């Protein structure tokens, strides 16, 4: 197992390099550059060229890439082209709110989706089942910007019980209850979407297992139906569910770009949008780099959890 993990980490290095090359090309080849985006309209062509030269933007792409890679290896993520702050500082500042929002959303979504999926499967083709599948269908299909604006209208504009956006009320930084209030709407919007698809996955995975012979064996032992479903069936239904959860982990970092934007959540998603708009190359590269690491890491984590859920899976 230890060997397997080491091997997977070693394989991850070339993958990560490949990802950074692609990201670099896509970002740098997009029309425009940081200087064009932030230039004073009165600046002369000469000024622009001096600025570009100073930032190294006139060098060939591969030289710029290797310079970036060299800096990364020294732990230097560079400086934002727009705010002149160190990139690492910007990201660490933004990662907290995103982690908070996304982890709460994921936990809420799973707490709702897994029991509902199990109930829906054990009562297949009942009214409960139809009701939950319809709702999960709605959860998946309603776009977050629409649902976001909808709940904002109802709870912030009409009822005026929840704040429209942000993470804290201005001048009231860091209050736990205050943050909780600000969390409610974005968490609702995000978890609806995540739970919607999760219910379907749990349901179909459970349905497959519920037809298995060994559950009849479990009933023949005289076990309660609750134990049969939740101990014998769920355990074996976990493999596909773990896969889905593993694919959800990267959004902890990636954030929900649209939802963060709607609710003015000061997280990485919002930062991504802003950086794309201002062609802030160094910030974008850092965001993508960390996202790639999280994706690779959660894939590894998923594979490790397979062995926990199913003893027939072994790596060596």
């Amino acid at each position: 197992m230890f060997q397997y993990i080491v091997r997977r980490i070693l394989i991850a290095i070339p993958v990560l390099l490949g990802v950074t090359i692609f990201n670099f090309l896509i970002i740098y080849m997009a029309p425009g550059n940081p200087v064009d985006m932030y230039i004073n309209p009165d600046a002369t062509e000469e000024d622009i060229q001096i600025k570009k030269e100073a930032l190294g933007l006139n060098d060939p792409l591969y030289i710029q890439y290797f310079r970036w890679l060299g800096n990364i290896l020294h732990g230097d993520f560079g400086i934002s082209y727009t705010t002149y702050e160190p990139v690492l500082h910007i990201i660490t500042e933004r990662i907290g709110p995103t982690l908070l929002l996304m982890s709460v959303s994921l936990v809420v979504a799973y707490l709702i989706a897994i029991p509902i999926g199990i109930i829906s499967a054990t009562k297949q083709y009942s009214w409960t089942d139809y009701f939950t599948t319809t709702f999960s269908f709605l959860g998946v299909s309603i776009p977050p910007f629409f649902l976001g604006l909808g709940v904002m209208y109802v709870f912030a504009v009409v009822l005026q019980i929840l704040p429209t956006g942000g993470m804290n009320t201005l001048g009231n930084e860091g209050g736990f209850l205050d943050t909780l209030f600000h969390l409610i709407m974005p968490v609702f919007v995000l978890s609806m979407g995540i739970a919607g698809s999760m219910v379907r996955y749990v349901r179909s995975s459970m349905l497959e297992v519920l037809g298995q012979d060994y559950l009849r064996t479990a009933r023949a032992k005289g076990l309660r139906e609750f134990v049969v479903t939740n101990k014998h069936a769920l355990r074996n239904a976990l493999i596909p569910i773990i896969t889905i959860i593993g694919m959800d982990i990267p959004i902890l970092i990636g954030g929900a770009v649209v939802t963060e934007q709607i609710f003015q959540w000061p997280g990485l998603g919002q930062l991504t949008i802003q950086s794309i708009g201002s062609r802030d190359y160094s910030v974008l590269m850092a965001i993508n780099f960390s996202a790639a690491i999280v994706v690779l890491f959660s894939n590894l984590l998923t594979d490790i959890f397979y062995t926990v859920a199913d003893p027939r899976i072994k790596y060596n």
Partner: protein
Amino acid sequence: MSKSILEIDKNATIETLAPLVEIQNLKKYYPIKKGIISHTVGHVKAVDGLDLKIYPGETLSLVGESGCGKSTTGRAIVKLDPPTEGKVIFEGQNLSEVNGSELRNLRTKMQIIFQDPYSSLNPGKRVGELLAEPLITHKLANHNDAIKKVDDILEIVGLTKHHKNRYPHEFSGGQRQRIGIARALILNPKLIVCDEPVSALDVSIQAQVLNLLKDLQAQFQLTYLFIAHGLGAVKYISDRVAVMYLGKIVELGKTEDIFKTPKHPYTKVLLNSYPIPNPHLRNRERLVIQGDVPSPANPPSGCSFHTRCPFAKAICREKTPDLVGNHHSVACHFPLT
């Protein structure tokens, strides 16, 4: 041979004892659903009016073609699949009136060995956990006692106590069936329904498992309902045999009577269809039938075998024959002599 009641006193007929299980007019219908509103358009009559008594200590075999309702009967008897109609009386207790925790407690007395040893063991649990679970659930043992009992039972079925830390997929088919037997046995039940316990196994392993079942019966005074379609195994293990056709019993009697002097044409056909290894012993004039088993969704009128029976007469199409006779009963208007 196992020490069945038959052998203890050759003169006493088993029917004088109080039955352990009494099945009265058992019916199991599965609805056939069609259309978007899934209305019921008919029923598959898997078991259609079955009467049977199982006496303590005996091995009663239930034989018949695939799809004749053998396994359904077995599962209905232990109420894993509740019957549509009819009664199953186990030790004087009507199982249709028993539910919930009462039924779960009864499971300590009636167990089932499943046909497929590959799919009937939970792949996610160690053998030790699988075997100890019923003991813990029914509070028959604490953790340490359970471990000891698991060790014992594994030895009894011919495995070793070291096997308890392994997962089911690490065993062969025969070993897995031994685990299935150990699982059924660990609660020390009175009745074990053996639902084709050897048909998924290699022939060489079949004999081992059959011998194991016989030894266990002698050791623990078990009563078996042995469901099978392999007649060799049936002949070897049973005291009495019940022949089923389309959800009904057509012939019932002691094993030797059934095998030597079958009375129902279907039993004769069934026996004839069993290959005899020695060519000199093969009966040249074999009774063969044509066609397939009729659909249990729409069984023939009268005697359900009349569509394939070479001796069918007009009355067979109209009147359903009753199962008659004392020790060797048959449901046929024109039984063979």
